[in-house]
């Protein structure tokens, strides 16, 4: 590593590093807004910025395939799913003052302590390590596909079974409420039953 340290300067960042830093600042800022804003729909939209910024970071790290998978799955489907969830639970469109719970100062303390410890350890461990981004891309579609279907076939197939299980599970979970509507209305007749109390609310 001493040889690598001689060829790289600590205080002379390359263009890729500057681009990574700027996109990283945008990503981190968008993530901060996502977890602090009081408008629920805005949180989902800022999550798009954070996830898109991460896709650009993957491109800068020459992991092209992962970057496009990130755009397709996260920005394309997960955020849309979250927005559907917000709409279906009748989230307020304007500012909702109770978006944060009462333990936000404890949460802030835990997060800042964890960030300090992690950044300290990571900087201390990898301050003399450089990624070599020259040459062929490390994550082009050809390389990723070859390694995925040569060395990772069995986990890949197991993953497809997991996706099927998740699909079936989601269908079962959404059907359950309709099937138990009769049962819960019957339970509401019991004295002090919870469904009757919830119906008022």
């Amino acid at each position, binding site marked *: 590593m001493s040889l690598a340290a001689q060829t790289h300067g600590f205080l002379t960042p390359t263009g890729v590093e500057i681009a990574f830093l700027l996109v990283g600042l945008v990503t981190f800022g968008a993530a901060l807004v996502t*977890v602090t804003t009081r408008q629920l729909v805005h949180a989902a939209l800022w999550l798009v910025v954070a996830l898109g910024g991460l896709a650009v970071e993957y491109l800068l790290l020459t992991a092209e395939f992962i970057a496009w998978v990130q755009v397709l799955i996260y920005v394309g489907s997960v955020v849309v799913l979250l927005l559907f969830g917000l709409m279906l639970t009748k989230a307020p469109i304007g500012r909702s003052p109770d978006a944060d719970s009462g333990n936000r100062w404890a949460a802030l303390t835990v997060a800042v302590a964890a960030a300090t410890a992690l950044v300290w350890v990571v900087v201390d461990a990898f301050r003399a390590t450089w990624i070599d981004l020259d040459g062929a891309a490390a994550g082009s579609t050809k390389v990723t596909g070859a390694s995925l279907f040569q060395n*990772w076939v069995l986990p890949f197939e197991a993953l497809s079974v997991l996706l099927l299980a998740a699909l079936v599970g989601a269908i079962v979970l959404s059907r359950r409420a309709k099937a138990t509507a009769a049962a819960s209305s019957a339970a509401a007749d019991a004295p002090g039953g919870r469904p009757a109390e919830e119906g008022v609310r």
Partner: protein
Amino acid sequence: MHLVYPAVLSALLFCTGLYGVLARRNAILVLMSVELMLNAVNLNLVAFDVWLSKTATETLHSGQALTLFTIAIAAAEIGIGLAIVLAVYRDRGTSDIDRLRDSAEGPGDDPGPGDAAAAQDTEKAEATT
């Protein structure tokens, strides 16, 4: 590129997600924060995989393969999580996780024996159907 840049960014994103999970009250916002934490892990995996693919002679590209698996599992997780949140919302009329305290054991919020028994009955009825 210095390896510290992606590593520090991923640590900061992880802690942002940690704050969101602990401080948010709406269940869907908690799911968003979980997504942020998963993405921080993904960035770490990709950065270290790119570093290792140039320094090591023999590599399985395990970081990128595991990133793809993480993305797929996160998609499954968000589907199941939203299905659970919607089921809870239909049942209780709220997705506020501070109010879902049926299984809480504390001195202040004792729901009373009759109420708890009725809640258990409905849970049993839901489990059997």
